């Protein structure tokens, strides 16, 4: 009988400097001489370069994202969209920014002034800080000196921690505005973020189990291993693994909820709350809220890309393995490999923009959720699904190392079925009942409403 202390090579903690040594690592070292000057920089200067390389592109790209959202949305809705200012309307956002800068900054009389001024800054801070451990490039070779701002051993926890700070901006803005609709928006937002954070943390924890490390660069390099440990020429992107698909789906939904975006934008529901938490904000403070929203959308897409979509790699193909297997074409594969390496930021930004486009697609497609639907989705569907996935992964890791690969899969599928049945019998049934109940209520409602017949007032002289 195996005890818990001497289980498995999969769960064994990877502690060394280079957890996933690859043939790549060796080859890229030869180009290092050209980049030697980077290694001789003062660490503080290098850190400054890393921060600037991360923050400046975001600042530049946010206006472009707003333009892209408006154009893509209008294309999806069969409109034209902004196309007057500059080529293809590209300068529209700049014009809007100038307008917002020059507008009068109105502060309502009865606001809590200190909190009212701090709130937009608090909304912007997590949006930029969350990318502190996000690697936009490879974790080996010369580029690794530039990529994650801090390659700490708690990378993914840092993301969770900072994203949980995002709620403060919205809540305090809602509170300080001294407007009941804003307050409602703030309350809704805090309830929503607390609910969806759990499922998000669970889905990320699944990937931590699968990877065996909390370090973001390890999560990327573990995705460069052979697919399922068997298919040598395809990379093991988490979205291609069975557990990763489930975790990725949960994370994708949660990240939309975390950024207060379209089907989950209850905190700013226009038809119920005017504009929710930023009703009372004007001019630049209003713009700061939007900037934070777009920046955090962008960076959450980046986190999705890093954790589930193989990081900076353009295609899930292990080029250097192909070069080893087919020596005749090794020149071609090496060339593609080096392009994949040196243009890493471009591929990564491409994946981020794909994520943003997904956000916009959702906004164009789905209507806003009702509040009870939002809570039911978070607590009754996503959280049980993510937890089930977590338990199954843990069981799979243990059984694989104890009984072997085939029996491991049998155990995993069996556990998934058993937990699914338990879910169906407990939470799932209740969900169905509630839904039926709600449907009856909404169907009956029009009948209950009495039509008031207002008599026209009779004229006094007739």
């Amino acid at each position, binding site marked *: 009988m195996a005890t818990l202390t001497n289980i498995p090579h999969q769960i064994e903690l990877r502690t060394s400097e280079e957890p996933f040594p690859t043939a790549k690592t060796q080859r890229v070292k030869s180009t290092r001489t050209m980049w030697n000057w980077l290694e001789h920089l003062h660490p503080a200067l290098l850190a400054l370069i890393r921060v600037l390389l991360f923050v400046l592109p975001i600042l530049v790209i946010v206006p472009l994202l707003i333009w892209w959202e408006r154009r893509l949305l209008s294309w999806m809705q069969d409109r034209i969209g902004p196309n007057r200012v500059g080529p293809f309307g590209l300068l529209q956002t700049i014009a809007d920014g100038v307008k917002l800068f020059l507008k009068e900054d109105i502060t309502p009389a009865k606001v809590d002034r200190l909190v009212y001024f701090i709130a937009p800054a608090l909304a912007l801070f997590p949006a930029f800080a969350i990318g502190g451990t996000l690697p936009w490039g490879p974790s080996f070779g010369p580029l690794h000196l530039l990529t994650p701002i801090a390659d700490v*051993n*708690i990378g993914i926890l840092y993301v969770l921690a900072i994203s*949980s700070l995002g709620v403060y901006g919205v809540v305090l803005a809602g509170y300080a505005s001294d407007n009941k609709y804003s307050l409602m928006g703030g309350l809704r937002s805090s309830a929503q973020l607390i609910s969806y954070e759990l499922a998000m943390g669970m889905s990320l924890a699944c990937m931590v189990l699968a990877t065996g490390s909390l370090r973001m660069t390890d999560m990327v390099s573990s995705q460069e291993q052979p697919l399922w440990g068997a298919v040598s020429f395809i990379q093991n992107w988490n979205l291609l693994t069975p557990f990763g698909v489930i975790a990725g789906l949960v994370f994708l939904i949660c990240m939309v909820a975390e950024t207060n975006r379209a089907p989950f934008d209850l905190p700013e529901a226009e038809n119920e709350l005017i504009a929710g938490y930023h009703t009372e904000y004007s001019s630049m403070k209003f713009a700061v809220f939007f900037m934070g929203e777009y920046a955090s959308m962008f960076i959450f897409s980046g986190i999705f890309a890093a954790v589930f979509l193989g990081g900076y790699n353009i295609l899930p193909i292990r080029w250097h393995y192909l070069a080893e297997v087919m020596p005749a074409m090794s020149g071609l594969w090496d060339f593609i490999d080096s392009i994949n390496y040196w243009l890493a930021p471009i591929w990564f930004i491409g994946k981020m923009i794909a994520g943003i486009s997904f956000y916009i697609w959702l906004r164009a497609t789905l209507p806003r959720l009702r509040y009870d639907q939002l809570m039911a989705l978070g607590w009754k569907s996503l959280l049980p699904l993510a937890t089930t996935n977590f338990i199954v992964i843990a069981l799979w890791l243990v059984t694989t190392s104890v009984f072997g690969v085939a029996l491991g899969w049998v155990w995993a599928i069996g556990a998934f079925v058993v937990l699914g049945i338990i879910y169906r019998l407990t939470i799932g049934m209740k969900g169905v009942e509630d839904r039926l109940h709600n449907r009856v209520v909404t169907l009956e409602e029009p009948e209950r409403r009495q039509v008031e017949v207002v008599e026209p007032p009779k004229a006094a002289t007739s």
Partner: protein
Amino acid sequence: MINVAGIEITPELVAFGGLATVAALAAIGVVAFNNAVRSALCLVVNFFLLAVLYFTLNAELLGISQVIVYTGAIMVLFLFVIMLLNLGAPQILHEKWDFKRPAGIVLALVFAGLIAGQILPSLMSASRPVSNPALDAYGSPQAIGRTLFSTYVFPFEAVSILLLIGIVGSILLAKRRI
């Protein structure tokens, strides 16, 4: 290096000084503000800066737990409750002056002196630890996970059961009939 009164001013010391000052000011703000939301906000700032202080000591996991648990979860719930109870409107409490205030000040000073007498001597003799490779893994997620699930597995599970009891109890209180 700059020396001030025999103390070497290092970047770490400057960072610590700045963070600790703001954290202490925020801690005072928690009790000094009349407005409940501002007090809560000060507590958030204090917790966050404590986490940053942990980061400067290379205790990343401790710091991040501080942010996740206190700043990100507990304080958000606090704010949520404050807003729901509508304590936000500045309701200034007027306390009548009586003998309790000077007595409280005196007792607080005595208490502070007592604690300072215990802590300060060992702080004065503290020195910067020499970099030790065996200590580098100290406080890392791996080390903490191993200790938690081997040496301290019983207390760990006991605490989880305690938390579970807390959750069940609160549900029982809130929802009498289930």
